[in-house]
């Protein structure tokens, strides 16, 4: 079962690593978002520390949207999506596979964005990098889970990228709030992190439980 999910994920990740299509467009999109933030706010060193959590999460959220727009791209042509559904594994497993693939790509991009952001905005918090990455990863779990479901939902829709943003952004409000607060808590010496981590985990668990089931309903003929 898990092997099937792993195979689907690996097909997407390996395919993308060879073509570097999604990965490089996500990365360069993230860089341009950072340039926009720099031009818009021109933070000095002190402000940059305060803005960093929000910057990181806003960039992650927008960049995820780019990746999600392409989750089902490999299955667009020649009825490949229907072919995938014909695989003799539960639909939930297929969903986990697509989710895992998107999760790995997004985590890879985050791994590159975090040091880049800290360099570009002159934030000296290198000792906190593992903690921040952990929080980002925890949030990305739920974010890509919900996102993959919404990507499946908007497959074949008109102006799907706009639709995806419209649907994903309000639903991920708890994630954004708790993610930003948790990273801010890590950056401050007397910051509060635990309750926000709890909220992130609740969000992840809810979507981990709900989305495979919802995907089954969605693709049922």
């Amino acid at each position, binding site marked *: 079962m898990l092997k099937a999910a792993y195979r689907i994920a690996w097909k997407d990740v390996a395919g993308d690593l060879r073509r570097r299509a999604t990965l490089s467009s996500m990365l360069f999109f993230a860089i341009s978002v950072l340039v926009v933030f720099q031009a818009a706010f021109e933070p000095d060193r002190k402000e940059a520390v305060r803005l960093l959590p929000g910057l990181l999460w806003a960039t992650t959220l927008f960049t995820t949207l780019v990746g999600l727009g392409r989750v089902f791209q490999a299955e667009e042509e020649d009825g490949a999506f229907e072919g995938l559904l014909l695989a003799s594994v539960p639909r939930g497993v297929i969903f986990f596979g697509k989710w895992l693939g998107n999760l790995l790509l997004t985590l890879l991009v985050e791994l590159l964005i975090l040091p880049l952001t800290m360099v570009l905005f002159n934030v000296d918090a290198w000792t906190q990098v593992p903690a921040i990455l952990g929080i980002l990863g925890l949030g990305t779990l739920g974010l890509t889970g919900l996102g993959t479901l919404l990507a499946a939902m908007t497959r074949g*829709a008109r102006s799907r990228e706009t639709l995806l943003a419209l649907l994903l952004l309000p639903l991920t409000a708890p994630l954004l709030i708790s993610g930003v607060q948790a990273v801010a808590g890590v950056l401050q010496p007397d910051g509060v992190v635990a309750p926000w981590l709890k909220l992130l985990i609740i969000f992840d668990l809810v979507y981990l439980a709900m989305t495979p089931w919802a995907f089954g309903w969605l693709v049922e003929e």
Partner: protein
Amino acid sequence: MNILKKIQLPLGLLTLISLAVGAWYVYQAPADFQQGGAVRILYVHVPSAKMALLSYLFLTVASVLYLWKRWEGADIVAEAATAVGAAFTALTLASGAIWGKPMWGTWWAWDARLTSMLVLLIIYKGLMVLRHSLDDPVKGARATAILAIIGGVDLPIIHYSVVWWRTLHQPPSLTAAENSSVHISGPLLPPLLILSGAFILLGLYMVTVKARQIEARRRLDALEAARMHPDE
């Protein structure tokens, strides 16, 4: 859907009467000693806020029924409830802003309940857009129903996350303890209760009208499709 046709007129009349009675009570109610006449805005604000959430509950139930039983009627009611809920949410935000300007000194504050309401409005909008951007109406209906249920599970999480995040809005006045400063009592209470009831009727009436309209629209679409492809 015949039942909708039957109940529309009596329901409409009942709504009209209860709204009129409520309006009369609001007119008779004394001005608040701190808020003055502006307190009357709350007789619209509070019931419409209740309806904004109640419509979502209604929408979730209709969506579950549609996915489970495949009744097209449930889908039509869900679509109608989405439009009605969005209208009440917008009314809540607008009346709240008008009340907030003299009372809080600002149209808007990023307070927990205001933020949740704004997010709710975007979710309603998303549901409307999703339904119409898929070419196959059955796929659109199913995707919308699933999204509605996900939103229904997400809304409490959104609410609690913003409550933790910031809180300025006063606690609910109806259930507040009697000695609390925001407790509502005496002559201010009857109009609020009557109007809450009237707004529930109004919401049901709006859903009825909207559902009949949607049903007619779908029948027209089906006729049009049959005319364009007579051999299918």
